[in-house]
C-alpha cells in the first residue's frame, strides 16, 4: 500500500473538525437568533396573568429556594 495513510488521516481530521465546528457555529447563530425572535414576538406570559401559570412558576420558585437552601446547608 503506497498511499500515505498519515496524510490521509490529517485530511480526515481537517474535514471532520471543520464540519463539526461549522455545524456547531451555525447552530449557535441559530440558537441566538431563535431566542431573540421568540423574546421579541412571543414573550413568555408574565406570572400572574393566568392563575395556573402563576402557581406553576411559584412552585418552581419554591423548588429553587429549597434547592438553594439544601446546597447552602451542605456547604456549611
Amino acid at each position: 500500500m503506497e498511499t500515505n495513510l498519515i496524510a490521509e488521516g490529517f485530511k480526515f481530521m481537517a474535514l471532520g473538525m471543520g464540519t463539526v465546528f461549522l455545524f456547531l457555529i451555525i447552530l449557535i447563530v441559530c440558537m441566538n437568533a431563535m431566542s431573540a425572535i421568540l423574546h421579541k414576538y412571543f414573550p413568555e406570559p408574565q406570572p400572574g396573568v393566568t392563575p395556573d401559570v402563576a402557581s406553576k412558576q411559584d412552585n418552581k420558585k419554591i423548588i429553587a429556594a429549597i434547592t438553594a437552601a439544601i446546597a447552602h446547608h451542605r456547604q456549611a
Partner: protein
Amino acid sequence: MKFFVLKLLALMLFGFATLHANAEVHHAEATEALSTHKEESYHTKPLDEMIGGFLKSTGVSALINPDPDELNAQGEQMSEFHKSWGRVIMILLTFFLFWLAIKKGFEPLLLLPIAFGGLLANIPVAGIAGEHGFLGVIYNMGLSNELFPILIFMGVGAMTDFGPLLSNPKTALLGGAAQFGIFGTLVGAVALSQMGFVDFTLQQASAISIIGGADGPTSIFIATKLAPELLGAIAVASYSYMAMVPIIQPPIMKALTTDAERKIKMTTLRHVSRLEKLIFPIMVLVLAILVLPESTPLIGAFMFGNFLKESGVVERLNDTLQNALINIVTIFLGLGVGSKLAADQFLVPDTMFIMALGIIAFSVGTAAGVLMAKIMNLFPGNKINPLIGSAGVSAVPMAARVSNKVGMEYDRSNMLLMHAMGPNVAGVIGSAVAAGVLISLFQ
C-alpha cells in the same frame, strides 16, 4: 321444520366424523413415518460406547480436545488456541468484567449484559453466537443493521434537557473541540499502521477513533458500519472508558488549568422558554439535513426522542422511550455486543491497540475541550470556567458531574453542573456529526 333441523344436524355429525377419521389416518401415517425415520438413524449401542460418546460431547472434552471442524460464528476456520485456551481466557475475562460492573460500578447497565453475552458466546459446541444461536439472532436482528444504537439514541434524546445549552449557546464550541479526540486518534491509528505495528485500514482506524467521542451508541453504530469485526473490542473499550471518566479526566483537567481558572464563577443561566426547547430539536435536525444528511439517522432519532419529551402532550410515549424501550434495547444491545467477545475475534493483537488508542482518544478529547475553554476566555465576554470544557466529550451526564466535582474541590460554592451540561449535550450532537462525516467519507 323439525325434520330439517335434524337432517342438518345429522349431516354435520357425519361430516365431523369423516373429518376426524381422515385426521386420524394422517396422524397414523405421520407417526409411522417418524418411527421408521427414527429406526434408520438410531442404532443400539453398547453402554460403554454410549458413555464414551457422551463424554466426547462434554464441555471439558471440547475445551481440551476441540473439534477440528468447528467453525466460528462467521463460518470461518478458527485456530486451535481460540477453540481451547482462548475460550477459557475469555470466560475468565468476562468474570473480571462482572467484578468491574458489580463491585466497581462501571456502567453496570451495559457492562453486565455485554459480559454475560461474552460468557455465552465462548461456550463450545452450543454455538450460541452462531447464526442460529440466540445471540446470533439478536445480533442479526438489531446490531448488524444498526437498529439498536438508533433506538438507544431515541431514549437518550427523551432524557436530554437542552435548556443549559440554549441558555448559553457558545458552550457548544466546547462540545465541538472535544471531538478532536476522535480525529486525533484517527491520525494516531493510521500512523501506527503506517509504521507497521498493526494493519488497520482507514475504515478500521475511523471506527476505533470514534471511541474518543465517548458515546456508546455512536461507537457501536460506526463500528458495525465500518468495521464489524472490531465491534466487540470497540464497544468494550468505549463503555469501560466511559465508566472510568471520573478517573481519567480529573488529572488532565487539573494539569491544564491554573488555580484561578478553576475558581471562575460563571453567570447564572437564564430561563429558557418552553417554545425554545420545542423548536430546538427541529432546528438541529433541519441543520443536519442541510449540512450533513449522513448524520441524520443518529441526530434524527435523538431529536425525535427530545421532541416527544418537549412537546409535553405525549407523556406516555416519552415515558416508554425513557424507560421501557431503552431498557429492553439495552439488554439486547449488550447481549448482541457480547456475542462479539468470542475468543477468535477478541483475543487478537488488534484488541490491545484498540484499548490503548481508546484511552488516548478519551484523554485528547478531554484536553481539547479544556484548552478550547481557555482560548474562548481570551475573547471578551462572560468568562468560562475551563473545567466545563472536559464535559465536551459526550458521556452524559458523567462528564458534567466530573466537572462539577472538580470545581467543588477548589471552591465549595461553585456549582458547575448545569453549566457543564451545555457542552455535554453539544458533545453528543458533535460526535453524531463527526460520525456522519466519517460515514460520508467512505461512501
